């Protein structure tokens, strides 16, 4: 008990001793856990929502439609058909809601559930007399929900519910087109009686039937035999699945690519975080050993410290991730397995917490091993890892103004950190350029997307870009902080030799601006390449040249402003105190 208390006290004391660093540490792990939470949600979006819908609604293998009901009755008895629902009457109707009007097919259904194609109600209830159920994607496009008033061909109805189905692709792609083949055609379900009332005296309804086959894999072959006029027209579940996938392909591609890019940035965050803390722990390890602490005690103190921060970061990351997920526009509306309401499952909580604890363990492992290996005297002397020398850069820097001289030399001391900072910015700039290109593609007019989907894709791109930039900003702050810690002795010495705090601040910032410049320049071809990888089937539309060029100064400016904060704090620490701490 006494030992645990000692470990707890030492850990708490160290966290309190440097609250700003503890907060940054929390922020970095939180960025990683938030990203991971969002990633898990995105995974749900991209994992075949049509299949989930098909299972949840007992989706048919083939949907067939005909003007003459007798044609469908014959189809029900065809070889290989093992079950059916319908035929149901279907009639073309104009749906009006909130002042908008849209073309739709109204399907007459029974109030009782069926064993094949029973649309899954996601809001409200199933059809009733005077109550219409609207397909989920169509409902979103019309901005209607359960309880709202709508009109069908001028007749008033109340929205009884909102449902998803696997018997057709979500709005606006309706497959099969049974009555009308308009490009934007919604689906609503009404009772059979209401469907008959909707039909005008001179218009007879069409009919649709849902079929189950003995071998669902034969659905396409079955459908191919159907589609010979004047026989019934139909669509296999394969066709509908393809239509559904095509409908959300762009958004899913953007989310998936963004998820990967975010994941890479999170890895960079963690690498910087661990590296930064290592630079700060050497002397502390020496102090603990000097007062009789064993490597095990040192490891326990460090672990306790990191575990507290990691658990807080995991909780915060899960909360922010779950709260932020609904902000991601949902590409799979109209299908089951949407991103809008991610469940906080035990596995998600476990995985996110596990990753946070793994970061804590990794951050403990290196100093613990170092504690076991490094002599107490050396650790107390805070012997820093020897910086690397790049002679030509040192020679070049002598010809530059003081801030650039200091910045270039600082950057050259740690080439790996320079590469990490460059990679972090290059990844972000690539994401931004890819988003700009996708946006340009939408504005270009060559896109086949309808305005609603284009708007949704734009929202996806905006959210992913904001998330990317936010995570990159955290990275930039952390890299600067790690560099400031590592360079505290040389910065203090430079000030003792006559550099002003402003020059040192500018130097630390410049050390970040240089990789930012390199990263931004690399990000332009990187972004173009990213689009090519994400969407190999289409030709890449480049954003306007001014946007591409603006990425570079904008990145440099943002990084300069961001890094000025930790650089300024570091450059104002007392010179004498730092130089004295270097004495053995």
């Amino acid at each position: 008990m006494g030992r645990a208390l000692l470990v707890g006290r030492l850990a708490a004391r160290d966290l309190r001793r440097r609250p700003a660093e503890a907060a940054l540490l929390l922020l970095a792990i939180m960025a990683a856990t938030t990203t991971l939470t969002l990633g898990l949600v995105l995974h749900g979006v991209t994992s075949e929502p049509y299949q989930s819908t098909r299972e949840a609604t007992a989706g048919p293998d083939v949907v067939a439609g005909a003007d003459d009901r007798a044609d469908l009755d014959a189809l029900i008895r065809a070889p290989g058909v093992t079950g059916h629902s319908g035929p149901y009457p279907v009639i073309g109707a104009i749906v009006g809601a909130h002042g908008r009007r849209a073309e739709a097919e109204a399907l007459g259904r029974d109030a009782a559930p069926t064993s094949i194609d029973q649309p899954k109600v996601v809001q409200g209830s199933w059809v009733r007399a005077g109550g219409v159920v609207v397909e989920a994607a169509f409902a979103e496009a019309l901005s209607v929900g359960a309880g709202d008033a709508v009109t069908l061909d001028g007749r008033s109805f109340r929205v009884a519910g909102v449902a998803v189905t696997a018997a057709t692709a979500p709005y606006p792609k309706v497959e099969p087109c049974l009555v009308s083949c308009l490009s934007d055609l919604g689906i609503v379900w009404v009772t059979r009686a209401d469907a008959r009332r909707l039909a005008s005296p001179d218009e007879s309804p069409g009919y649709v039937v849902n079929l189950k086959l003995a071998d669902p894999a034969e659905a396409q072959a079955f459908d191919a035999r159907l589609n010979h006029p004047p026989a019934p027209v139909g669509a296999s579940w394969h066709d509908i699945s393809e239509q559904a996938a095509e409908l959300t392909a762009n958004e899913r591609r953007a989310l998936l690519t963004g998820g990967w890019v975010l994941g890479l940035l999170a890895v960079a965050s963690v690498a910087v975080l661990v590296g930064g803390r290592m630079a700060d722990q050497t002397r502390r390890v020496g102090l603990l050993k000097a007062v009789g602490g064993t490597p095990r005690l040192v490891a326990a103190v460090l672990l306790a410290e990191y575990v507290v921060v990691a658990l807080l970061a995991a909780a915060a990351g899960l909360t922010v991730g779950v709260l932020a997920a609904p902000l991601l526009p949902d590409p799979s509306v109209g299908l089951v397995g949407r991103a809008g309401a991610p469940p906080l499952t035990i596995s998600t909580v476990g995985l996110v917490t596990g990753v946070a604890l793994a970061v804590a363990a990794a951050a403990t492992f290196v100093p613990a091993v170092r504690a076991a290996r490094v002599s107490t005297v050396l650790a107390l002397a805070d012997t820093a890892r020897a910086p690397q020398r790049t002679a030509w850069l040192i020679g070049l820097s002598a010809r530059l103004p003081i801030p650039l001289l200091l910045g270039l030399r600082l950057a050259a001391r740690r080439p790996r950190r320079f590469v990490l900072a460059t990679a972090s910015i290059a990844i972000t700039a690539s994401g931004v350029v890819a988003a700009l290109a996708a946006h340009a593609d939408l504005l270009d007019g060559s896109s086949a997307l309808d305005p609603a989907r284009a708007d949704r894709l734009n929202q996806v791109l905006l959210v992913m870009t904001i998330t990317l930039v936010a995570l990159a900003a955290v990275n930039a702050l952390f890299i600067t902080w790690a560099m400031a810690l590592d360079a505290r002795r040389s910065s203090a010495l430079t000030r003792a030799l006559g550099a002003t705090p402003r020059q040192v601040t500018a130097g630390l910032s410049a050390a970040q601006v240089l990789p930012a410049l390199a990263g931004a320049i690399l990000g332009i071809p990187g972004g173009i390449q990213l689009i090519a990888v994400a969407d190999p089937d289409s030709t890449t539309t480049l954003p306007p040249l001014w946007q591409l060029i603006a990425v570079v100064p904008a990145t440099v400016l943002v990084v300069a402003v961001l890094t000025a904060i930790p650089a300024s704090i570091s450059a104002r620490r007392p010179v004498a105190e730092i130089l004295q701490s270097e004495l053995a």
Partner: protein
Amino acid sequence: MSDVTNTFVLQARGLRMDYGQGEGLVRALDGVDLQVPAGETLAVMGPSGCGKSTLLHLLGGLERPSEGEVWLQGRRIDQLSEKTLAGLRRHTIGFVFQAFHLMDELTAVENIELPALLAGRSPRAARRRATELLEQVGLTERATHLPSALSGGQRQRVAIARALGNDPLVVLADEPTGNLDSAATLDVLRLLDSLRSAGQTLVVVTHDARIAATADRLISMRDGAFVEATRLTRGSSVPLGELTQLER
């Protein structure tokens, strides 16, 4: 301050320096007065923790006193901005540290030229001056060596050359032989003696009697205050070889 004149390069009046507060308050300096005329080599001796290094930091503008005044060449400096103090350190003060504090990634000549570059000299002029100083400290052949490839004495000689880079008015040396063996100490003693002979104003804090013996004046410190001041007859009259035999 009417009684502060320009005849002294460096002056301190009533210097007090406190660290911490309340029950944890530590008084590192307690009412120190000091006057250093141009060309004098002043040695400040005392046991560890007596406030020697703190005094040096205050005189060089690396720290601000809790109370009292510091004057450099007739100008009060303890209230100057950090930027102005940096300018003073760049042009007027040279520092020598016990731990050398050389940049590990820079060669000897690059370390020495750094203050000149910070002062805005051209790279060519800075390199020329650094080469002269390397010759002065007898390390011409070590110009392109990194600090890790130099002995302790050589490192301190590079540090001294760096302190002289901008022809400072005063050199402040903090335990310059504290990390050196006897042979290296002798090298540094010779160098400091040559600086004294050249008329360089020097303030050296040390607990090494051999260094103190080369000074014009010796001040002893204890518990943050001066306890004794002695004007030495002629430090350099004692052969340096004999000085190295003195007990610390």
